[in-house]
């Protein structure tokens, strides 16, 4: 009896294995039929990171310390670490001239890390996460002869410490450029008759309902609107910077609401992955998602931190004061774009973006030009509106634009 059971089990297992092979074979056959005849792939970037140039001498005893929230596994931190490594290499810093501390939480550990870096002889210390700010300020007050630089923070302007500085980049310009690519894709769909002009609705997955995200999606929307005037946009907030499931669900909900193109400001692959699965074009952030999403990825913008690192290192070595608030733009090379996926993007996208880059550089194009959008049907009035445009990141480097522009619908609110 036992033997019979064993033989039976073996037979069943065999049948399953053979069945599996058969199924695989079928997949392969149909796969071949679907394959496109030609893949154009990625274009060169219309706005690439410039090479870091060394035009000063490193003083003896110079040492810089970096404090990072996570390690390379987070796209956010990887972006900082890549910038730091580029500068370290370009300036030829030796091993005893820099220290990188990873996985430092947003708590007293950050203060302890800064203290330890001072103890090891660092003359300048940089931290990369918003929540590090209070602890960096605490350290800056204690160690007045060391420079403290903090990315994405907003308290330097009001703290009045000579050795504490904030930095950001005018990433809204990068998002505007990515928005142009999105708008042109919508135009292509309208011309092909896939959608009507009124159906040109985009979806946006945002992390939290505050200025950094609002400024980002508004500039993205304005970029799209500059080429596709009838465009509207729905925004869904997840309330988290990194949550693959929430971001995927948000993207799927937006697609179900007839959004024909998706972009996001959150750090996981949730939204781009959902777009690839549904075949909906996606404008990404923080770096290319082309490898994982070759049939839907259009373009991605990101902040390049190398110019800021180069700037602060130069200041310390040439005894110049570091700006209290520093906001790098296109001219500094702080805002960059990936290449454009020519299999998905509309024809002429590369040229249109290159034209806008030139106009932004020349100053003839302002992203938040109040002639191009309304808030509650009226032209925006605010203290920061100067010469007909909202002066984003002009005074405090962190983004501050947090108005609800007409044409954009917030499906929910989610504060951190």
């Amino acid at each position, binding site marked *: 009896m036992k033997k019979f059971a064993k033989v039976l089990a073996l037979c069943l297992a065999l049948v399953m294995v053979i069945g599996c092979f058969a199924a695989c074979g079928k997949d392969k056959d149909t796969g071949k039929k679907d394959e496109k005849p030609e893949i154009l792939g990625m274009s060169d970037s219309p706005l690439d990171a410039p090479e870091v140039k060394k035009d000063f001498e490193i003083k003896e005893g110079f040492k810089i310390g970096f404090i990072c929230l996570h*390690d390379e596994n987070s796209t956010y931190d990887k972006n900082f670490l890549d910038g730091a490594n580029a500068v370290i290499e370009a300036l030829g810093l030796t091993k005893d001239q820099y*220290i*990188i*501390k*990873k*996985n430092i*939480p*947003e*708590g*007293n550990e950050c203060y*302890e890390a800064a*203290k*330890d870096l001072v*103890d*090891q002889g660092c003359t300048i210390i940089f931290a990369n*996460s*918003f*929540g590090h*700010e*209070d*602890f960096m300020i*605490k350290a800056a007050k204690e160690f007045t002869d060391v420079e403290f630089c903090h990315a*994405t923070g907003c308290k330097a302007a009001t703290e009045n410490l000579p050795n504490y500085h904030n930095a950001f980049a005018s990433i809204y310009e990068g998002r505007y450029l990515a928005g142009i690519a999105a708008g042109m894709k919508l135009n292509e769909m309208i011309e092909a008759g896939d959608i009507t002009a009124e159906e040109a609705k985009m979806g946006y997955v945002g992390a*939290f309902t*505050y200025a*950094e995200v609002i400024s980002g999606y508004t500039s993205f929307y304005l970029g799209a609107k500059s080429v596709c005037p009838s465009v509207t946009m729905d925004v869904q907030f997840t309330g988290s*910077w990194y949550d693959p499931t929430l971001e995927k669900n948000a993207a799927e909900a937006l697609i179900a609401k007839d959004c024909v193109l998706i972009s996001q400001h959150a750090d996981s692959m949730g939204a781009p992955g959902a777009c690839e699965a549904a075949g909906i074009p996606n404008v990404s952030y923080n770096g290319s998602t082309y490898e994982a999403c070759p049939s839907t990825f259009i373009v991605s913008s990101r902040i390049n931190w190398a110019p800021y690192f180069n700037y602060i290192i130069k200041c310390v070595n040439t005894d110049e004061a570091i700006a209290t608030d520093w906001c790098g733009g296109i001219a500094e090379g702080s805002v960059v774009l990936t290449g454009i996926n020519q299999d998905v993007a509309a024809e002429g996208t590369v040229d249109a973006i290159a034209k806008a880059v030139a106009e932004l550089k020349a100053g003839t194009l302002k992203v938040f030009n109040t002639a191009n959008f309304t808030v509650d049907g009226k032209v925006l009035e605010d203290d920061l509106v100067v010469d007909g445009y909202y002066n984003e990141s002009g005074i405090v480097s962190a983004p501050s634009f947090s108005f609800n522009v007409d044409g954009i619908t917030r499906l929910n609110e989610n*504060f*951190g």
Partner: protein
Amino acid sequence: MAREKKVHNPLFHVVKREPLPFLPALGIRAAAVVAALIVSALVITVLSQQNPLEVYKSMFEGSFGSSVRIWNLALNLAMLLCVSLVVTPAFKMKFWNIGAEGQVLISGLATVACMFFLGDQFAFLGDKKPYVLIPIMLGASILAGILWAVLPAIAKALWNTNETLFTLMMNYIAIQLVAYFLKKYVKSGSGVLEPMPQHGLPVIGDMDYLLSILIVLALTVIVYVYLKHSKQGYEISVVGESVNTAKYIGINVKKVIIRTLAISGAIAGVAGFLLVGGINHTISTTTVGGRGFTAIMVSWLAKFNPLTMIITSFLIVFMERGAEQISSDFNVDPSISDILTGIILFFIIGCEFFLQYKIVFNKNRKEEV
């Protein structure tokens, strides 16, 4: 014949040893550490192509490289030790409290709530503010800790529920409560509550953490004396050895369980109070930072002896600091240093096993077959 075959006769079996004298036992432990270091050195050379001696030097410097680091080591040691004291009385009673993380965190939440809501209310007291505010903070913290520890104890005493699951679940409730209140009261970007050092513990001289460290040391001695030399401590041991014996000699087991967990909770209250009021001056879901779980290892390795726990928590904090230093000095992935910590702990735990048990091979096994 057939019946004889069924007698199970294994290749070897494990037998409890006579306790070894102190010096040879120490020698064996030292040998285990040396063996661990040699194996780790091999792993370092193969995985990261670094000179193992350099790596060990950097590991040592991570803890003792400068006075700042020694203070940092002392602080982290003290906090890990304090959280380990939370689990120890319960463990001695074989009550598996794995909820120290939540018990300390909820105490921290109570402390921070006092600082946040009452701190500015008492400003009119001027210099005398700490004399009013700090006892309130400590009291609220201890009450919260006791509540979190006693709930599972009551359920265990009355309905014999599984304390491991119950205390574990309480961790999640505490973490989510902290997340909820941070969302509710902190409106800034990534939800970090601004530190409130103005409402924190006083500082002795300019040594930020000295007071906290001294409190933990005193607490360690108190818990040691309580467990070793008090009647209640003895009751805990008896309940731990055998509940039936305890009942037979007239110990009220239910009372002992609830009382012991109330003490655990009170210690958690002190830990949360020091972490938030003395060190962080703010709270996040990661303020306890996994110490509630590391504490389990600290307590076990020390066989639930609070004084030995000073050594075991030193060992673990030393390796953590060293691991951090290795990854920043050699720019290697932090996981390499985690691997080293794993290897060293593996050898130490293995060595403890062989100090207590020996393996006896069955000589006449072949003959029987």
